[in-house]
């Protein structure tokens, strides 16, 4: 674990150099969605579950921005470290194992996902779109989906030979998962089978928790959502290590 923290420290040293451009990129997109959907489309949408449309989608933006941050870091970011810069190989020559390298990358991506979630949370709070002090727990909660999404992306990276393949991950998995996650409309408005499928969509669980905390609707059901994500992360960690071992140790 110490070695994983040292690798995390290495990534943080890089982050300190690039954080500004990095945050700006991740900051602008959710803001565009918030403006277009919340203010634009929202004027034509009636109140949803007693909320204005902006209030409804704002917490989902926190969850999704956090998801995208983790996913991009562990797809493009990790692939560049593996394939182009060979940072993993350089680090592996040091006193670390593949597990440490995977853990270091996951910690870093989780950290970034928390930071980007926090940035959007700050924005929506300034815009008055959080209703409860429970919202303060959101950044802490984001660690859980952060781990799950980092690991999911990292496993895909472990199977990927070509950087163009990430388009598939984003277009065929992340984007639909995001659109049908309850960010823009409630899951219970979808057909029954789609509601079942939603339970297998990690971003759905993250959105549910973020929205409940932002509105102060805490209930024990939130623990189930968090539990699903924890379980997902626990299953994926050994898989990620195995896939990366295959790539690095021959």
């Amino acid at each position, binding site marked *: 674990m110490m070695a994983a923290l*040292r690798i995390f420290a290495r990534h943080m040293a890089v982050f300190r150099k690039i954080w500004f451009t990095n945050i700006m990129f991740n900051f602008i997109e959710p803001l565009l969605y918030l403006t277009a959907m919340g203010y634009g489309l929202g004027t034509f949408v009636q109140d949803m579950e007693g909320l204005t449309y902006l209030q409804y989608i704002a917490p989902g933006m926190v969850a999704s921005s956090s998801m995208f941050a983790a996913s991009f870091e562990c797809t493009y970011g990790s692939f560049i470290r593996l394939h182009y810069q060979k940072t993993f190989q*350089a680090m592996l020559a*040091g006193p670390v194992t593949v597990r440490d390298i995977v853990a270091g990358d996951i910690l870093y991506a989780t950290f970034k996902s928390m930071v980007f979630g926090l940035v959007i949370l700050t924005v929506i709070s300034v815009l008055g779109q959080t209703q409860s002090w429970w919202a303060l727990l959101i950044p802490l909660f984001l660690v859980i989906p952060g781990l799950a999404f980092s690991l999911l992306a990292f496993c895909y990276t472990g199977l990927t030979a070509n950087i163009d393949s990430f388009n598939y991950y984003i277009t065929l998995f992340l984007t639909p998962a995001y659109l049908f996650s309850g960010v823009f409309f409630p899951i219970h408005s979808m057909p029954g089978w789609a509601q079942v499928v939603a339970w297998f969509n990690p971003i759905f669980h993250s959105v549910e928790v973020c929205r409940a905390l932002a509105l102060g609707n805490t209930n024990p059901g939130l623990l189930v959502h968090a539990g699903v994500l924890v379980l997902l992360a626990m299953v994926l960690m050994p898989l990620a290590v195995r896939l990366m071992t295959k790539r690095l140790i021959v």
Partner: protein
Amino acid sequence: MNEVVVRAENLGKTYGDFRALKGISFSIKAGECFGFLGHNGAGKTTTMRMMYGMSTVEEGELWLFGESIRLTPPVIKARLGVVSQEDNLDEALTVIENLEVFGLIYGLTRAESWLRGKDLLVFMGLEDKENSNIESLSGGLKRRLVIARALMNRPDIVILDEPTTGLDPQARHLVWQKLRSLKAEGVTLVLTTHYMEEAVQLCDDLVIMHEGTILAEGSPQYLIATYVRPYAIEVHLPLSQVPDGLVDQVSAWGGEVIRVLDSLFLYADDGEKLWDSLAGWGLPKHACLLRPSTMEDVFLKLTGMGEDA
């Protein structure tokens, strides 16, 4: 007698149907410079990767610092410095930051790491480049930085996989000088190369590898003295213009002939005498060159690149 720091016994490696290493044995003593000389694909890099923990030992045995290895563990990697074939530097970071950040992985504090990095930049003659971007460095400077990075943990053994491939002669000599000073400080050097000159210039002891096996082992002087005659004459004529029966004549005279693709090499114990006989065999001297035999001759002979004519 120095202690043995690396020992391999019958070390093998198979990738699918391809047997990359066919059971090699060698031992490397502390403080020496040990070389693996061979073509691309001879099995040198595979051997190196097993030493520094990027490949598992599946056939035969490998000991590092007396410990039997399957996959080199972090405690042993902490005592190694690795200069891999590719310059895997961090392009987002400057020269000094590359060293600083790498030190963190060895558990140095940021301040320690920075100090050590500064020292190593001076040692490798990179102090002017401290704050340069990686992209702006030439190939030679990048190599020197990769070597500096491999020294951040003050390793007992530095493993260099083709340290000067792709460098111009001046940059190569500079790297050699630095490696010599490292050796003078008692660091064990293990290097792979396909440059004969590099092997001769640096190695106390070397093995010649070919298609996954070791063909010969010894000091460069020993190998030259053992495997080839002391003098060589290069015949710079197309084979079609070489007089018929030359090979037989040289052999009958007591010399040796090796053909490498389209060129002929004649070998003898007495170079002057062989030289004086050329005219009699119908070989014009202006097309020939007499020189002492080198590692290259040993290599050509042993690897079968030169077939005995």
